[in-house]
């Protein structure tokens, strides 16, 4: 039985951080980017694409909130309003929230965190980006040449019969981009199974990788169902075959079943990778081993499995049988348990840590706060009697924005700041970043907290006009949204600034233990100078003389 004494455990000694060749300066020119198969460059391509989508979706949200400043819908007319919230939902869900963390941070860091040189199928990875922008172009074209007014949920028979807008091109774009999700999911699953560095057992896998693995399984299993559901809407519109439209002999609720069979797991596609990021950030900035590694890792898998069994909780008021509703209610509570386990374990990780208030940690703590509130209000919605009142009101809007924006976007921002030095070789400006984290947190609360009250008062979602007594709360929400907008624009400015003027980062500015930090920043094209050999888990921040490594 031997022990190894190390204060800063490292799988491989980091090569000197001399300004050598890296993935950014290995080749130049547009062609070297557009034809690259380097997962890191593809991640950058995705970063640019989804950032554009985020700000386009944000622009739609801005107009929505401006319109709701008064009860009478004075900024835009009803049809334009309906197209705006559809555009906001479609772009944000399918072209930002679902892909963002896997395709940007996952693409870049999944191979690096498991000590691999690239993903299993590098060319498939590039193809997935082309498929994605092709789908996005289709959808953006549909929106620019007249828009679509069905809402991002495309409920039938409105979408299949009643709407006279560009439903078919929009759906086509979404179906196409779904294939990009499937390709990415497949790539990740194979990579995690086949390309881990020697010694990187499943029990030593970073939690971000566990969460990406769980996410990829959902992407693989759920996305085809979405493609089917949306294709059936197209078929019904084109060929007048009765699938969903009751006047043609179809069943409108069938669409909701198919749609939510994808779209509820999709919520976990959005938030699971965020949870993974938060596990990385908390451990790094508390300089401490994660509390309950096994529970946090298996919670991700538990969420992935249970997420497939709760879809009908979106249909509690849609004429569902009482006992069916009860089963879906209790299963919805079951899926909340693993999320709660994660929150408690993160909290316990801080205990007796060495907490450094760097910007990524502030984003991570913001995530825990907002995600907890989002999850807690989810418990309201899982209660059948309560859902009956708040379903399809602003309560729901506030709830899922807490999860998907307060959760996912907060975690993404944290991850982006945390790994920015690795991706670019430059530090982000610390003071501005902390300010942005604070502004986003406060702006978010001010925007969405009033919406819970609005929803309980009964204001339905997707309303272009509303009764005057709801105005004060709507103005509060819009005011908060303007603060939130500043919070999101700020990082756009200073992160671009940092590309030229940020402090050089060095290989491991955080003293983090993950494999991705054991190589220069920015990393060389092959990621590692030599294939790392892993001898212990990813969160060994404590001096290891107390630990038996071999024996």
């Amino acid at each position, binding site marked *: 039985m031997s022990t190894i004494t190390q204060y800063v455990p490292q799988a491989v000694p980091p090569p000197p951080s001399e300004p050598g060749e890296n993935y950014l300066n290995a080749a130049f020119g547009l062609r070297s980017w557009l034809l690259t198969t380097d997962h890191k460059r593809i991640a950058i391509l995705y970063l640019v694409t989804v950032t554009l989508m985020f700000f386009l979706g944000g622009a739609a949200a801005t107009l929505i909130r401006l319109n709701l400043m008064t009860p009478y819908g004075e900024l835009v007319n009803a049809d334009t309003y309906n197209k705006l919230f559809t555009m906001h939902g479609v772009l944000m869900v399918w072209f930002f929230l679902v892909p963002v963390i896997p395709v940007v941070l996952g693409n870049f860091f999944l191979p690096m965190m498991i000590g691999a040189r690239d993903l299993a199928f590098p060319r498939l990875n590039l193809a997935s980006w082309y498929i994605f922008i092709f789908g996005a172009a289709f959808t953006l074209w549909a929106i620019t040449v007249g828009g679509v007014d069905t809402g991002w949920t495309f*409920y039938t028979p409105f979408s299949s019969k009643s709407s006279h807008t560009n439903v078919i091109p929009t759906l086509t774009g979404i179906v196409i981009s779904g294939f990009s999700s499937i390709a990415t999911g497949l790539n990740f699953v194979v990579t995690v199974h086949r390309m881990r560095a020697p010694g990187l057992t499943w029990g030593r896998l970073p939690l971000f990788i566990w969460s990406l693995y769980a996410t990829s399984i959902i992407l693989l299993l759920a996305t085809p169902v979405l493609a089917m559901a949306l294709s059936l809407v197209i078929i019904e519109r084109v060929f007048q075959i009765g699938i969903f439209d009751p006047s043609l002999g179809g069943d*409108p609720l069938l669409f909701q079943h198919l749609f939510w069979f994808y779209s509820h797991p999709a919520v976990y596609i959005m938030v699971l990778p965020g949870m993974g990021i938060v596990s990385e950030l908390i451990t790094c900035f508390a300089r401490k081993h994660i509390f309950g590694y096994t529970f946090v890792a298996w919670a991700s898998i538990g969420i992935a499995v249970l997420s497939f069994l709760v879809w009908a909780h979106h249909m509690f008021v849609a004429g569902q049988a009482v006992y069916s509703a009860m089963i879906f209610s209790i299963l919805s509570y079951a899926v909340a348990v693993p999320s*709660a386990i994660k929150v408690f374990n993160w909290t316990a990780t*801080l205990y007796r840590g060495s907490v450094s208030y760097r910007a990524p940690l502030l984003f991570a703590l913001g995530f825990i706060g907002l995600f907890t509130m989002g999850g*807690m209000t989810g418990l309201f919605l899982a209660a059948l009697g309560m859902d009956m009142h708040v*379903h399809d009101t602003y309560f729901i809007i506030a709830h899922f924005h807490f999860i998907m924006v307060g959760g996912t976007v907060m975690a993404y921002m944290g991850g982006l700041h945390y790994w920015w030095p690795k991706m670019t070789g430059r530090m982000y400006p610390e003071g501005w970043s902390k300010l942005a984290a604070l502004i986003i947190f406060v702006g978010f609360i001010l925007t969405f907290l009033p919406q819970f009250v609005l929803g309980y008062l009964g204001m339905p979602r997707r309303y272009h006009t509303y009764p005057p007594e709801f105005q004060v709360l709507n103005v509060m929400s819009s005011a908060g949204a303007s603060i939130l907008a500043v919070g999101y624009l700020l990082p756009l400015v200073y992160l671009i600034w940092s590309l030229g003027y940020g402090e050089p980062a060095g290989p491991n500015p955080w003293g983090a233990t993950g494999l991705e930090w054991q190589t220069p920043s920015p990393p060389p094209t092959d990621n590692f100078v030599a294939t790392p050999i892993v001898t212990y888990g990813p969160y060994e921040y404590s001096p290891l003389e107390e630990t038996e490594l071999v024996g």
Partner: protein
Amino acid sequence: MVAEVPLFPEQASTIAGRVDGLLYFLVAVTGSVTLLVTVLILYFAVKYRRRSDGDRTPRILGSFRLELFWTVTPLFFFLVMFYWGASIYNDVSRPPDGAPEVYVVGKQWMWKIQHPDGQREINELHLPVGRPVKLILTSEDVIHDFFVPAFRTKVDVIPGRYVTTWFHPTRVGTYHLFCSQYCGTNHAGMVGSVVVMGEQDYDDWLAGTRAEGSLALQGRKLFLKLQCDTCHSPGPHQRAPLLENLYGSTVHLEDGGTVTADDAYIRESILYPEAKVVQGWRPIMPTFKGQLADKGSELTEEEALIQLAAFIRTLEPGQTPVRTESFPAPVGAPTRPKGKEPASVVVPERPPGREEPP
């Protein structure tokens, strides 16, 4: 202005108070846990802040007992929430017996309402205080949702099927009625009010609102106008089953199956007569799809179907309007069963496809 900002919706039904009770419980439990987590995080973050770059931390891997504790404890509270929510939902899904039935048809972008005594309203629903009322709802086009925040209930109104809900209003007043399922351009305009009135006021309202006879009577008029009695009446020319005592009975079908004759079955049989053919009868009925709406009286197809069903529901033996020879068969109806002479269409004493209702 500030004084007018409501923070809580009015309570105007027996369910409202129960939903609010559940809300208080949920806010208390989730609020305490959120507060606990927040305080712990802030406390740890401050107490264990990094003092120097050489800080060392203990290697704490976890605690099975703690994991068990924070898995089982939430689960217990979740079960309480589940039970509480489910019991309210269960009660809302079971209307009390004998409650008067009001029919609601959603249509882009208005609510059309028919009372049992024949009063019709648009975007307004008048109800008496202190008495339960059952709503039977359907949609003319896309999915709508009938939402009354003061009653804390909503139900999706789905084309092609009937859904039910009920309320027991407890307070006189005028309350918001919203469509809360997105239904197109003027979704936000598909709003109205529910007017809960005292007994006397309600009776006055009923008496003062024009009604062309009860719903069943209007259905009878339609039955005659559409010449349903051409075939559905006793006598030598009967070509279709009698509809007396049909409602609620079990009907045996030509394909060997059975079906309970409810509103949905009657609706389907009028719109898609060949979907379920009664045992012993031939599929000769033409569809009435697209022929029921009446622009003149602003009667939509679904409203007409509701009136016909209301008539059939009240139809007792011997009450079928007697067919007279002066009416021709409806347009499109075969004048005689295919391949058979009229004389050979034997009228059984009781149509074999139907049992007496229990």
